[in-house]
């Protein structure tokens, strides 16, 4: 059992992690991404309003989880690489390209990095897509969840996800899932950030704590 120093607060020596809940879901015509907003260092919450949905391009976003520094760095690098790539091909990049770039970095440096990014967006070729890139794997899925809070909602998303939801239903599904996870996971909390991407662009929204849906509470 390590000795606790009572003079130094935990966040001076603990690594900063986005113990978190992230989710991305496809609907007919686009995707919805969602995340909580808590960043913890050991037992302290160092940032309670961090937006973990990071833009990689106009219509491609990624959701960050794991070590905050690693995740942000990967997102920045891929943002740059994607800009260069889109100039070269003289067109908007495909979501698959963005996901592949993230996967390449995650896989090559898998020993040093500990971050899991979910990449989601809309492109003209395949519409709305969600890719999971855990530890260097690249997998296209109808929806993906990640982060420490995601374990508590596996059952809920398995039961409630349906193909071909409308945009509204998808947004509600994402907010419900985030609320349930934040209710049970100590490292997730704060507000819910939701980004909806379709062919017209990306729309960001923040759902404050008191606007989140309420579930049965003893």
């Amino acid at each position: 059992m390590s000795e606790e120093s009572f003079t130094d607060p935990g966040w001076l020596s603990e690594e900063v992690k986005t113990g978190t809940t992230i989710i991305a879901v496809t609907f007919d015509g686009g995707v919805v991404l969602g995340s909580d907003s808590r960043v913890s260092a050991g037992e302290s919450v160092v940032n309670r309003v961090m937006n973990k949905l990071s833009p990689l391009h106009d219509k491609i976003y990624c959701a960050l989880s794991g070590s905050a520094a690693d995740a942000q760095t990967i997102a920045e690098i891929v943002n740059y690489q994607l800009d260069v790539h889109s100039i070269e091909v003289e067109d908007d990049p495909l979501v698959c390209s963005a996901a592949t770039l993230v996967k390449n970095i995650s896989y090559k440096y898998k020993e040093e990095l500990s971050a899991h990014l979910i990449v989601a967006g809309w492109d003209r070729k395949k519409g709305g897509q969600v890719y999971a890139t855990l530890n260097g794997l690249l997998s296209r899925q109808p929806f993906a969840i990640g982060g420490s809070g995601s374990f508590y909602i596996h059952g809920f998303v398995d039961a409630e996800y349906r193909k071909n939801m409308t945009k509204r239903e998808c947004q509600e599904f994402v907010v419900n899932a985030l609320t349930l996870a934040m209710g049970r996971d100590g490292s997730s909390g704060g507000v819910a950030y939701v980004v909806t991407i379709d062919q017209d662009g990306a729309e960001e929204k923040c759902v404050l704590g008191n606007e989140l849906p309420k579930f049965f509470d003893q």
Partner: protein
Amino acid sequence: METHHSHSQVKGVSTGTTILAVKFNGGVIIGSDSRASMGESYVSSKTINKLIQVHDRIFCCIAGSLADAQAVTKMAKFQLSFHSIQMESPPLVKAAASIMKELCYSNKEDLQAGFITAGWDRKKGPQIYVVSLGGMLLSQPFTIGGSGSTYIYGYVDAKFKPNMSLEEATQFSTNALALAMGRDNVSGGVVHLVVITEAGVKHIVVPGDKLPKFHDE
């Protein structure tokens, strides 16, 4: 998600498991999966019954070390029958839960098992009590436990309603257990449910191929 696994220092056979209990209008349903595992890779039994009857209308389900759980429930069953003879009436559910709690608390260094006690008695009707690893006793309208329970917290939080009918509660329990068994590799097999009401006790078994299917199956 390979960095997450239930940190089980339980030696020998353990019920890596999913258990739950739900109160509905007129009774309780207590349910579990049926897999017993040794370590994380060997299934030592596919059809174990984790729902133990400690009295006519009181059942217990166990999570953790099978050996500890069997020892505790055997002791509790004996003490409860003795108590019920002394009182000359069927025991209260709370009495059964308190006996488990005493055993768990006094032996907390040596035991590694948690219990859900559920049943019906004439004084308070249907009740559910949770006795955790260290010996805490808590009464709740529904509860889940075992390694598979982490995956269904979101589902049960969203779907539980107080005063459900028997059909709704049965569907709720079966769905929750099926979802947990689908994600937890140390839960599986068949779903065992026991419905306890004033009228009596009914045992329902849902085999693997009759479990509800969700979107990816």
